[in-house]
């Protein structure tokens, strides 16, 4: 098929796919064929991405390019004592053929190594300059995110690849490439070559090729350079290669010169026609402090010039907002584009195809680029961007349409796995008891950044242990803080809606945490430790934001308080169940009888030799003690409780059992049962708010809201029957939607299902009877209750 298409190439003009195949469904059929024929690879399905890290750097100076100019810039920066990162696509000096330039690069590199404040990222490709500036550098084993204060772009220049018929044949070389082939790899670019020299550097390359044994059939050279060509080589003065002859490889060259046209037999054409700057990165960064140095702004500059430019760029303290490349880089491209030949080698766009596109009306660089895909290949226009501009300039005559195309990052093809560097790194928070849970075959689940036991394989057994015997749970993920300092009492009193001033030593209080808008965003226990200050807890998910919240107010009020985040350093075990006290008494010598240690009190006691702050609270609705202890001693405490509680029927319970236990008490979980605009009144938490206080966060908002009629509220709803409606089920009253369920479970101890849900007013009043629509079980009638389902008097928690 390929050969057939080769002969039909005249028909496969630019836009062929759009015109012929993008109709109806045909594209679906031919796309796979085209992809295969054009050599577009497929994505391997089984190859797992390499685990790659993401590293952050904040140097003063980032230099892109490790040539003479780049290394000089880095050196100048390093000598001034600033931190420098150099990103070089390959190895330093690796691509430069042996010679003066290579020697200088090696010298500069050696000097750089003596500076500790310089990091050289070899094989590190800078893929763009983003706002910030941010320069992502793709390295062999990491993605480096470099955020410097200043950027020096010294990406150099590549040799111009001229457009003439046959310029894509095998055997057409650029001077540097041929020299590198012969010099570094000892491979000949051909047995008999035509060399086109028009730069100083090209004479060195010619000499290198000759000494390595390549036969030079002719040298096409301008008068000015002819004296530099060694004797014995045939010269064609002031000539130009107008075509390469041959079908798939070079068989000869057609050369035009003032003395006429001639064919020269050869199997290689080496072209040294000057440089075109690799200014893609420079053009990308319009708003960033970036400066270019060396060939990228001054193609063909000498060694000394590049070094001087580099040193100047590296030593400059602050750049102008924008330093554009000098005229030679963005100004008029050198010469016209031939009518035949390949313009864009990456995308295989021919001059005749550009003509077609032009005739079809795509008459600017931006339009031609999009239509023909010229400059859109892997080199991103490094070789053909100038050709594109020349082409437009020749035809339109208007500079407005031949401007440079917009350069956007990335400047290089990037692997998705490089972009994804670091995103697969999940940081798993573990409590000090993680190994104990694993030992008990717990099913661990994500809870925010934490891994927590959901259950230990027997949810109802775990539940029963809490209700009828004794059980422990790891709640070390709670946010835990010490607040101390001269202003601690006043500070907390201003923060929370409950009275902290009136809190006696050893007493604790539950309180919602309100924001300025008067909405509940978390809940806290506050325990007074007397002269030692206060101990605070937050929910697991609120632990992080809580610190920012506390510090924000301390800063705003100028309060003299210490806020010590103990979330990671303290572990917590909740010991709960009717026999909890019996077990605790076995492990401590401190008094734990109900008179010495009643409900809503906190005591510093020693349990199994571990110092604990024990808080008597009742989230699960039974006699319970939260034992806050040094996290490292958690396993010791856990083991002692499990061992001494064996005869009492102790077992550990997980999150699954907890969710039912608290629901039977009608206790909310902030985030699950609450919304962003849940005021205490909506949640039925007015009892926890002391509006007579002069000040607390959210008080003015609550005062304002108190004049408004409550439109929605969270209600406890009872469903009779053995199955609970699904969480999230809609609630109806006489055919009207009145709300939805936020939590719902079947309670084995009560024999019916317990639920929390949001209700709106229905004809003036909140409904007292609702119907839940369950997708599986249909409509399920429920009754709104006003008190906790389980132990409404709270006798069990006070026991």
């Amino acid at each position: 098929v390929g050969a057939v298409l080769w002969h039909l190439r005249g028909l496969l003009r630019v836009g062929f796919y759009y015109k012929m195949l993008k109709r109806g469904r045909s594209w679906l059929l031919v796309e796979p064929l085209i992809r295969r024929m054009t050599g577009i690879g497929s994505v391997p399905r089984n190859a797992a991405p390499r685990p790659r890290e993401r590293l952050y750097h904040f140097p003063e100076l980032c230099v892109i390019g490790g040539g003479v100019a780049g290394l000089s810039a880095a050196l100048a920066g390093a000598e001034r004592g600033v931190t420098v990162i150099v990103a070089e696509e390959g190895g330093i000096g690796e691509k430069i053929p042996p010679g003066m330039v290579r020697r200088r690069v090696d010298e500069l590199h050696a000097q750089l190594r003596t500076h500790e404040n310089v990091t050289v990222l070899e094989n590190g490709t800078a893929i763009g300059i983003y706002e910030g500036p941010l320069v992502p550098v793709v390295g062999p084993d990491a993605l480096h995110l470099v955020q410097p204060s200043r950027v020096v772009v010294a990406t150099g220049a590549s040799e111009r690849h001229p457009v003439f018929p046959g310029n894509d044949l095998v055997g057409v070389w650029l001077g540097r490439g041929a020299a590198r082939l012969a010099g570094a790899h000892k491979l000949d670019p051909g047995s008999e070559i035509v060399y086109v020299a028009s730069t100083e550097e090209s004479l060195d390359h010619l000499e290198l090729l000759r000494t390595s044994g390549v036969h030079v059939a002719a040298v096409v050279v301008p008068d000015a350079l002819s004296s530099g060509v060694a004797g014995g080589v045939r010269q064609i003065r002031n000539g130009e290669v107008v075509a390469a002859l041959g079908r798939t490889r070079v068989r000869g060259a057609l050369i035009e010169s003032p003395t006429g046209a001639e064919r020269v037999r050869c199997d290689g054409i080496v072209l040294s026609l000057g440089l075109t700057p690799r200014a893609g990165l420079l053009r990308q960064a319009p708003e960033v402090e970036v400066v270019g140095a060396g060939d990228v702004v001054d193609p063909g500059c000498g060694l000394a010039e590049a070094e001087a430019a580099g040193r100047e760029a590296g030593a400059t303290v602050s750049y102008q907002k924008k330093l554009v490349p000098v005229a030679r880089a963005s100004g008029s491209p050198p010469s016209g584009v031939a009518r035949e030949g390949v313009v864009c080698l990456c995308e295989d766009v021919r001059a005749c195809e550009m003509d077609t596109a032009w005739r079809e009306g795509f008459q600017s660089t931006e339009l031609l680029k999009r239509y023909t895909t010229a400059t859109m290949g892997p080199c991103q226009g490094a070789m053909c961007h100038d050709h594109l501009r020349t082409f437009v300039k020749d035809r339109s005559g208007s500079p407005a349409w031949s401007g440079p195309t917009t350069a956007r990052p990335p400047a290089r093809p990037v692997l998705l796995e490089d972009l994804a560097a670091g995103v697969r790194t999940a940081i798993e928070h573990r409590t000090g008891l993680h190994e104990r849970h694993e030992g008990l075959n717990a099913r661990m689940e994500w809870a925010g950044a934490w891994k927590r036991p959901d259950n230990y394989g027997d949810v109802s057994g775990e539940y029963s242990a809490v209700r009828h015997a004794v059980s422990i749970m790891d709640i070390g993920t709670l946010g835990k803080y010490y607040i101390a300092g001269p202003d601690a009492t006043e500070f907390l009193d201003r923060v929370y809606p409950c009275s902290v001033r009136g809190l006696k030593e050893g007493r604790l209080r539950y309180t919602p945490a309100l924001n300025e808008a008067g909405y509940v965003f978390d809940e806290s226990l506050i325990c007074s430790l007397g002269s030692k200050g206060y101990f605070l807890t937050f929910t697991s998910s609120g632990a992080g934001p809580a610190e920012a919240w506390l510090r924000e107010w301390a800063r705003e009020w100028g309060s003299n308080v210490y806020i010590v985040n103990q979330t990671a350093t303290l572990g917590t075990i909740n010991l709960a169940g009717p026999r909890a006290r019996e077990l605790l008494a076995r492990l401590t010598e401190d008094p734990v009888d109900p008179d010495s240690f009643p409900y809503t009190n906190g005591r510093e006691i020693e349990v199994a030799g571990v110092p604990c702050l024990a808080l008597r609270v009742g989230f699960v609705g039974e006699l319970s003690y939260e034992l806050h202890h040094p996290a490292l001693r958690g396993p010791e405490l856990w083991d002692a409780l499990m061992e001494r509680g064996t005869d009492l029927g102790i077992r550990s319970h997980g999150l699954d059992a907890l969710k039912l236990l608290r629901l039977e008490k009608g206790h909310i979980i902030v985030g699950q049962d609450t919304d962003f605009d849940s005021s205490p009144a909506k949640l039925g938490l007015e009892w926890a708010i002391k509006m007579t206080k002069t000040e607390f966060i959210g008080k003015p908002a609550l005062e304002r809201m108190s004049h408004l009629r409550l439109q929605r509220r969270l209600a406890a709803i009872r469903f009779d029957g053995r199955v609970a409606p699904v969480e999230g089920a809609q609630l109806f009253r006489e055919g009207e939607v009145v709300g939805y369920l936020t939590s719902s479970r079947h309670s084995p101890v009560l024999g019916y299902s317990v639920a929390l849900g949001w209700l709106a007013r229905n004809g003036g009043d909140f409904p007292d009877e609702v119907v839940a629509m369950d997708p599986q079980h249909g409509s399920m009638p429920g009754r709104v209750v006003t008190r906790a389902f389980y132990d409404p008097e709270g006798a069990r928690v006070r026991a």
Partner: protein
Amino acid sequence: MAFLIDCPNCGRRPRTEYTWGGEEPGIAEPGRDAQDAWYGRAWLRRNASGRQRECWFHAGGCCRWVAVERDTRTNEVHVLD
């Protein structure tokens, strides 16, 4: 949105280490009552196009609030304290 903030404790760090705390809340004007002051603080934002005073919390570092002036158009940041 890649820029650096100079933390007075930790030094120069990328903004991804910080949590945005919003505009610096307005100071209550004398003569206006507490209700209005709180209302403005809770609900009203200037949302300036240009330089505005903001609070950033160094959550991935030392956990301190840093007051900065940021240009919302260019993300130029000047630390105030």
